């Protein structure tokens, strides 16, 4: 029997005597206040070789841009990135206001930190100029795993919901189905897809309360709520941190239980 309870975070408010009992399990009790002081602090423990979900859809809205920049500055390598529309904004302007230089997940391939990406939309239609992901792929420096978007989000949802796999009609009869178990239901073919989890999720919300309840705005939800549930450690970039009660209980989009750390942007941040 192993009894361990590990505290972490920058604002531990419980004592180590909170040790509780569970067979052969090491689990973490979160501090009630999950506020972290800086983006650099929030990502400081991410090691080389980690798998990292990056929220948003593609484009500026819902993208944890400041956390991504902090991870780039941290410099760790051999990363596996899990995203959606991953690396097309820089060369096409996708989802960014015209007057800003777009930032996308290609930054981790430009910096050489990432060696693999799992996503639905790695490259734009055009190859002129070449995107960072396609360039790394052509040079043999990046493994690119392309997953249908609905399958990708459901694999992430499944991981967070304790479901190891599911059958989907999407991808049957295509290269996506190769090597996967098929099964018929009511005479229609489906294929088995497996849950997808990660070591870390970097996500974005409009507002967090200090406990970590999150509120989203507009189309910035996208991949963020599901990713929050599917990683061992979920780190959230927000525009504003409020006291409990500052988010209407009816409008909580992600429960605090899923959230490990929250970081607030500086007011007046010019990035969307």
């Amino acid at each position, binding site marked *: 029997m192993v009894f361990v309870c590990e505290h972490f975070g920058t604002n531990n408010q419980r004592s180590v005597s909170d040790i509780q009992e569970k067979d052969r399990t090491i689990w973490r009790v979160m501090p009630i206040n999950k506020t972290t002081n800086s983006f650099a602090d929030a990502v400081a423990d991410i090691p080389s070789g980690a798998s990292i979900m990056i929220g948003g859809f593609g484009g500026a*809205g819902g993208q944890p841009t400041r956390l991504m920049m902090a991870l780039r500055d941290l410099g760790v390598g051999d990363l596996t990135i899990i995203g959606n529309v991953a690396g097309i904004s820089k060369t096409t302007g996708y989802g960014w206001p015209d007057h800003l230089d777009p930032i996308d997940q290609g930054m981790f391939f430009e910096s050489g930190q990432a060696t693999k990406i799992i996503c639905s*939309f790695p490259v734009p239609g055009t190859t002129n100029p070449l995107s960072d992901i396609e360039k790394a792929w052509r040079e043999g420096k990046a493994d690119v795993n392309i997953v249908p978007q609905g399958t990708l989000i*459901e694999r992430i949802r499944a991981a967070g919901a304790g479901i190891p796999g599911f059958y989907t009609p999407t991808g049957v009869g295509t290269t996506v189905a190769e090597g996967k178990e098929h099964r018929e239901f009511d005479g229609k073919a489906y294929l088995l897809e497996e849950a997808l989890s990660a070591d870390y999720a970097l996500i974005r919300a409009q507002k967090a309360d200090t406990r970590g309840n999150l509120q989203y705005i507009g189309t910035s*939800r996208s991949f963020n709520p599901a990713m929050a549930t599917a990683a061992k450690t979920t780190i959230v970039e927000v525009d504003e941190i409020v006291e409990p009660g500052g988010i209407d209980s009816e409008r909580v989009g992600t429960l605090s239980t899923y959230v490990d750390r929250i970081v607030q942007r500086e007011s007046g941040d010019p990035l969307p």
Partner: protein
Amino acid sequence: MTSVHPNGNDPAPRLDRAAIAKRAARDLVDGSTVNLGIGIPTMCADFLPDGVELLYHAENGILGFKELSAPGEGDPNLMDAGGKFPKLVPGMAFFDSVESFSLIRGGHIDVTVLGALQVSHTGDLANWMIPKRGIGSIGGAMDLAANSKRVVVAMEHTARDNIAKIVDECSFPLTAPDCVDEIVTDIAVIEIDRKNDRLVLREVAPGWSCDDVQAHTEARLELDGEPGLMA
């Protein structure tokens, strides 16, 4: 792959992209929940017949959007799947990607209009990767093509150098097999008649005969009555 009509002898001008969109828009039924792909499909929204109102879905999590914001005025937190910024309008709904693809996979999208690289005579669709590039983007296309109630392809009839896009078998990687219901191009409207496993030429562009269209099409086209005129 061979050019079916290498000399490019067009008997009359082909329709422009806007005219393809206008023709595809004519079949959209009032009140439908519709997903429009990037390019010609998106342009369908500009040509809806009078009295037709659609509920537009974009897979990034928005239902009920209409026109785009003026250049420079868009909100990045109010985006469509093409990366553009629609205006906030009454009745609009936002949701996450789990919900968005439950809507798609669950068969709740009435019509998807999308572009294609190739369509086969049985309605197989290829639109996500050109093999010689070796890398492509699936995005939501496989989910939309496989699970929408009706799939309409709006595209130019042939590729560069008049290479056929409507073919016996797709040589490009499939998006979904057996999914396309109708093809609207710059020279014809073609129905995929699954019950009888055939392509039916329903309309031709002004100045184009059935033989002219067939000469630009690898797959065999059949007639079911005299084709109408695209307008």
